[in-house]
């Protein structure tokens, strides 16, 4: 089977978020970028399924400018066979989805795996858009994915529970834990990744459907009000009478 794994290049989870002085852009200065943590589940699961099938390929795709290549190489080091970088700034989910749908169709992939959401923009939407653009099912967010021939059995998380869903390839799934234990690159992987093919292609389709006018940081907290442990019960009174939340 041909697996396509879409990875987003995001600020490390410990990043302190700041913006450019006009508040129109995220300030990348000094920020460490990583593979979106959810996408690591998609990547590892694709590699596991390929290994279990004993044949097939795993291709990673990123929509991004040249500065995302270190993380694409990292995905190759973890075990993907080849990579595609669509050379464009990922303007919004619609823009990204068009690129993925186009190159997924062109490459004839059977299974398209993504992460649950991109932790920078928290859209939770690229997978649904790609499924709709290609006219195939999307299962999001999936906690489990098994393949038997052309048929996949997935656990889809819904509020308060899960659904067991069966779909036939081709399909899109967005992955999250506890699907697998994400792999980290080993020395051999890092060496071979250098020579694996990374194809750079041009963006296609229409522009973005949305635009960010301005970013803002959340208002600062007032500061904590401490209650002595011996008078713990006082806290409950404050929550009722002052904060009015119980």
């Amino acid at each position, binding site marked *: 089977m041909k697996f396509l794994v879409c990875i987003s290049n995001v*600020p490390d*989870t*410990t990043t302190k*978020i700041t*913006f450019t002085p006009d508040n129109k852009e*995220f300030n990348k200065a000094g920020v460490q970028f990583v593979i979106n*943590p959810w996408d690591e589940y998609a990547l590892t699961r694709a590699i596991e399924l390929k290994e279990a099938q004993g044949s097939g390929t795993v291709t990673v795709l990123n929509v991004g400018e040249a500065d995302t290549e270190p993380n694409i190489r990292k995905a190759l080091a973890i075990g993907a066979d080849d990579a595609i970088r669509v050379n464009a700034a990922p303007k919004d*989910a619609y823009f990204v*989805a068009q690129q993925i749908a186009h190159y997924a169709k062109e490459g004839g992939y059977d299974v398209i795996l993504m992460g649950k959401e991109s*932790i920078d*923009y*928290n*859209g*939770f*939407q690229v*997978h*649904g*858009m790609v499924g*709709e*653009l290609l006219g195939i*099912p*999307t299962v999001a967010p999936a906690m489990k994915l098994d393949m038997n021939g052309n048929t996949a059995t997935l656990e*889809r*998380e*819904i*509020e*308060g*529970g899960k*659904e*067991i*869903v069966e*779909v036939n390839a081709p399909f899109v799934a967005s992955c999250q*834990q506890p699907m697998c234990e994400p792999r980290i690159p080993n020395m051999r992987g890092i060496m071979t990744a250098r020579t694996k093919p990374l194809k750079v292609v041009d963006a296609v389709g229409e522009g973005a*459907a*949305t*635009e*960010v*006018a*301005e*970013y*803002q*940081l*959340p208002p600062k*907290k007032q500061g*904590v*009000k*401490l*209650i*002595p*442990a011996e008078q*713990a*019960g006082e*806290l*409950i*009174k404050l*929550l*009722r009478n002052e*904060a009015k*939340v*119980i």
Partner: protein
Amino acid sequence: MSVLVVVECDKGEVKKSSLEVASYGAQVAQMLGTTATAVAVGEASEANLATLGEQGITKVLFDAEPRLKDFVNGAYTKLIAAATEQEQAKVIVLANSNIGAAVGSRLAIRLKASLATNVVELPKANGSSFTVKRGAFSGKAFADVVLSGERKIIAVKKNSIEALHNAGQTAQVQAFSASLSDADFADAPKQVVMQDQAGGILLPEADKVVSGGRGMKGPENWHLIEDLAKALGAATACSKPVSDVDWRPHHEHVGQTGITVSPNLYIACGISGAIQHLAGVNSSKVIVVINKDPEAPFFKAADYGIVGDVFDVLPKLTQAVKELG
């Protein structure tokens, strides 16, 4: 032109998040000088749908197809698209839930609409475009996003909009059929497994949450968390390491790589307050931290705090809640 709101139902009741969505839609309709129509998904009851009048809904479309009881992406998308066409809706509002966002993203393509998920405020209209505020960078920031398409889809984050309650108003429930066929149910679940939630309160819907971290020392001590949660009518949650070692189930893990919650009250017990944990809880209205280490980073993000031992403090809090009556 009208506003269409998608209301999710469960066991006959409209979900709390959907009451917020309905109220949001009704206020957008008022802003645009039109009315708000709802379309129901999930296990709905006509009597409960009529009460959506209290949230400002005029009319509710109800397709009695029994297979709509469970979430089916294909069928839900077609149903809502059909309702959009019938109502000539220009704005569609749904919950930023696993269901709402999944359906919203398919609809954005099918209806050629601009979509914003994770929206936390009512829109500001500017000519024919809308500016909406949405959460980004995992709760560490907000973005004002301009939706300029002729059609707009807004997925509203839970607990960010106050539900309206205009007592006595009722909505007219109308039968509706999207002529769904078997093909629309291709992703229908073979089985649905609901969690056995402590006290029956679902974490993503809860407006109070009591959460435990590694400071709780082991799963055998979780009755302290559960007792307080029960007394408060709260859901229970945990930090990532706690679910990683199976002290608690994965679906209770909150944070950047778990679920995001925004309750009115979040009580953190024996949790240090790592940045990845805060990302999932920092939009809670009031945060209470109980930690024996006065230097724990969580205190910087807290509104109230107790420097103390959870094993001593939690029973006192539970007792105090019970005494409130």
